[in-house]
C-alpha cells in the first residue's frame, strides 16, 4: 500500500524545552514592525489574547502582560446585545465571548463585562433543537455548544440554558466510530471531539460517551513520528496534540498515547531561534500552536509547566479559585478481580 502520511523528525530538531524563549516570543508578539500576520488576525484578536495570556500563565509569566490595557480592550468589545467581538469594530460572536471570559477569569475580573448581558447573549444563541449558533447569522457547530457552556460555567450560570436539549444535540453528533463532528452526520474530527467531550464534561454527561471506542479512535491518531493528527490519513499537527490529548484525559484514557514519542514530537516543533511552536517541525511559529504545544506538555506531566485543565484549557489553579471541577472519566474497568488483589501479600496496586 501507499506510505503512511507522516513527518520525519530530523536528528537536529530541538529536544529540550525552551520555555524562556517561548515567554519572550509571546511577550513581544504584535509589537514588531511590519507584522502583517498580526494585522491579518485582527478578526480573531480576542482569542489571540487568550492564547497568549494562557500560555504565559502556564509558564508562570502572566505578569509580563498588560492587564489594564487588556481589560479596557475587552470592555470596549462588549456589544449592546451582550456578546463580545474579536476586536473593536467587529461583530460579537460566541467564540470571542468565551475567550473574553476566559481572559478575565485569569485575572479574576469578569465584572469588567456586564455578566448578565453575556448570559443573555449566550442564552439567545440556543436553537430549538438544543444546538447553538455562533452569532445572529446562524452557523451551527458543536464548537459553539462548547463555547456556550464553557462561558456559562466560568460565570456560574449554567442554569441559563436548556441543558437537556443542548446535550441531546451534542449526542446527536456522535458518529459510528465513537467520535463527534460539527453537526449531525459530520465526519469525526479531533477538534470537534474535544469540544464535545468538554461539553459533556461540563454538562455532567460523560457517561454517555463510549470511552473505549472513542479512546481507540483517539489513540489511533498517533503516527510513527509520535505526533498526532486530527483524523485518519492526515499529517500530525501540534495543536492536535492538545485536542486529542485533552479529549483522552477527559475520558480517562490518556495513557493510551505513547507519551515519550509525543513529547519528542512536540519539542521538535519548537523554533530555537524565535521561540514559539509551529504546527510541525520546521514550520513558522504562532501563538496558537505555542499554547497548544505547552498545554500538551503540561498534560504529559512536564514539571516546569503549571497543570492545565483539559476541559477549559486554563491553568488548574485558576479553576481551583473559581471552584470549578469539570468531570473527568477515570479508568473504570477493574484490572484485577478484587478477591485476588486483597489476597495478595505484596499488592501491585501502586
Amino acid at each position, binding site marked *: 500500500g501507499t506510505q503512511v502520511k507522516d513527518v520525519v523528525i530530523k536528528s537536529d530538531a530541538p529536544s529540550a524545552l525552551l520555555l524562556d524563549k517561548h515567554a519572550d516570543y509571546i511577550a513581544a508578539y504584535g*509589537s514588531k514592525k511590519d507584522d502583517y500576520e498580526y494585522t491579518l488576525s485582527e478578526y480573531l484578536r480576542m482569542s489571540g489574547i487568550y492564547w497568549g495570556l494562557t500560555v504565559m500563565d502556564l509558564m508562570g509569566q502572566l505578569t509580563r502582560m498588560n492587564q489594564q490595557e487588556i481589560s479596557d480592550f475587552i470592555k470596549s468589545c462588549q456589544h449592546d446585545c451582550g456578546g463580545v467581538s474579536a*476586536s473593536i*469594530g467587529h461583530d460579537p460572536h460566541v467564540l470571542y465571548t468565551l475567550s473574553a471570559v476566559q481572559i478575565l477569569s485569569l485575572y479574576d475580573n469578569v465584572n469588567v463585562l456586564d455578566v448578565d448581558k453575556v448570559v443573555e447573549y449566550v442564552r439567545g444563541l440556543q436553537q430549538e433543537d438544543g444546538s447553538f449558533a455562533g452569532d445572529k447569522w446562524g452557523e451551527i457547530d458543536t464548537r459553539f455548544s462548547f463555547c456556550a457552556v464553557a462561558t456559562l460555567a466560568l460565570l456560574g450560570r449554567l442554569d441559563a440554558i436548556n441543558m437537556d436539549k443542548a446535550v441531546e444535540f451534542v449526542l446527536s453528533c456522535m*458518529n459510528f466510530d465513537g467520535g463527534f463532528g460539527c453537526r449531525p*452526520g459530520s465526519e469525526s474530527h479531533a477538534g470537534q471531539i474535544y469540544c464535545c467531550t468538554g461539553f459533556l464534561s461540563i454538562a455532567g454527561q460523560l457517561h454517555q460517551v463510549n470511552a473505549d471506542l472513542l479512546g481507540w479512535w483517539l489513540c489511533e491518531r498517533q503516527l510513527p513520528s509520535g505526533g498526532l493528527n486530527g*483524523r485518519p490519513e492526515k499529517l500530525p499537527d501540534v495543536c492536535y496534540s492538545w485536542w486529542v490529548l485533552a479529549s483522552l484525559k477527559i475520558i480517562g484514557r490518556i495513557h493510551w498515547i505513547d507519551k515519550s*514519542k509525543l513529547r519528542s514530537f512536540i519539542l521538535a516543533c519548537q523554533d530555537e531561534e524565535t521561540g514559539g511552536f509551529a504546527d510541525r517541525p520546521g514550520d513558522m511559529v504562532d501563538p496558537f500552536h505555542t499554547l497548544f504545544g505547552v498545554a500538551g506538555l503540561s*498534560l504529559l506531566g512536564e514539571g516546569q509547566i503549571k497543570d492545565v485543565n483539559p476541559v477549559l484549557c486554563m491553568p488548574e489553579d485558576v479553576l481551583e479559585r473559581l471552584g470549578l471541577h469539570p468531570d473527568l472519566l477515570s479508568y473504570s474497568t477493574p484490572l*484485577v478481580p478484587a478477591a485476588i488483589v486483597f489476597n495478595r501479600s505484596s499488592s*501491585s496496586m501502586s
Partner: protein
Amino acid sequence: MTSMSAITQTSDLTNKAALIPLATERPAYYRMSGIEETSNVSSEFQEERSEEEVEEEIGYEDPFRYVFYRDRKEWADLEPVPQDDGPNPVVKIAYSDKFTDVYDYFRALLKNDEKSDRALLLTAEAIELNAANYTVWHYRRVLLQALEKDLREEMRYITAIIEDQPKNYQVWHHRRMVVEWLNDPSEELEFIAEILSQDAKNYHAWQHRQWVIKEYKLWDSELEYVEQLLEEDVRNNSAWNQRHYIISHTTGYSDPAILNREVQYSLKQIKKAPHNESVWNYLKGILQDLGLSSHPGLLEQILELKETHCSPYLLGFLVDIYEDFLENTLEHHEEVLSKALELCELLAREKDTIRREYWSYVGRSLQTKYGSSDSSTTTSAPGSDSGSVHQETPCSS
C-alpha cells in the same frame, strides 16, 4: 460632492469589463487584486480624467493605475477610520498600504452604516485582502439584502472566492446563506465536487454537501459519487463517513442484504489496501450494533484475509470479533479468550507497539471479564509495564 452619482452600477462595470482584453468572467471588482502602485502615479492620472473614467479604470485590471480610496474623489466624503488595536504595541505597525487604506474605509462605512453599491464593492476588496474577517462578510450580507442585489451574481462571486480560498468557515457559510435566499441548490453538488477534486477531504466542503443533500433531498446519486471518490483514494476518511451518512439516511443498515453488501464492499476495499484505518472503522461501525460475531461467515473471511492481507487493523478487528463472541456465547470461552489474548500480546509487543497500552488494557479487560477466577492473571497480561495495575496515572506526578 457628487460622490453617490459617480458610483457606477455593478452591471455597467461588468459590461465594460467585457471590452477589455484582460477581463475574465469574474465580476470586475474581483479583479482588483494585488496591485500596489505609489499614489503619485495614480493621482497624476486622476486629475486628467473625469470621475466616471476613473471609476471605470478602477474596475479593470490595469496594474499601473490602482488608486487608493484615500485618493478617490468620490470617496472624499468619508473620513477613514484607522485601526484601533487595543492593547498594543508601542511601535506603530507598518502594514501594507493597500490593506490599511481599504480597511480604514471599511471601518468608515461601518461607522456610518452606509448602505450603497460602493460599500458592496469595497467589501469585496476587503474580503480579497482577508477572507476570514467575519465582520466584513456580515456587512456584505446586510448590503446584499438592503440593496436587493442580484443573488445569482453573488453566487458567481462566492464561487470564485471559494475556489481561491476553500478552507475558511466564512466563505462556506456565506454560500449557504445565498443558496437559502435563492432556494436553489442546483449548482451545489457539481460545485462541491469541483472543490473536492482539489482536496477530497476539505471539511467545510463536506459539511456544505451534507447540508445541501439533506435540505433539498438530493440523495439519489450520492452513493455513486462516494464510490467514485473511494476508487480514487480508498483511504479517504471523509468519503467513508459520507457513505455511512447516505446509507443511514436512505435505506439504513437493518436490511441484512444491505448490511452484507456493505460488509463485502468493505472487505473488497481491504484487499486493495490493507493498511487503511477508515475501512476498518467503517466495518466495525456498521456491525457493532448487531455484534461483530453475528455476521455469517465474517470470521472465516477475516481469517482468510489474515494470510494474505494482514495488518494491525485486521488483528485488532479479530480481537473485536472474539470479544463480541465471548460476550454473546457461552461455549468455547477458553479457546477464544486465549486466541484474543495472544493477539493482544502480539499487537502490544510487535505489530502496534505505539499503542501497547491500549492493547494491554484490552487484554486485561478480556482476562478480567472472561478469564477463570483462579488463574494468575496479572503477570501474563501482555505489555503491562512492571505489572503495575493502578488506576489512571495522574499525569502531574
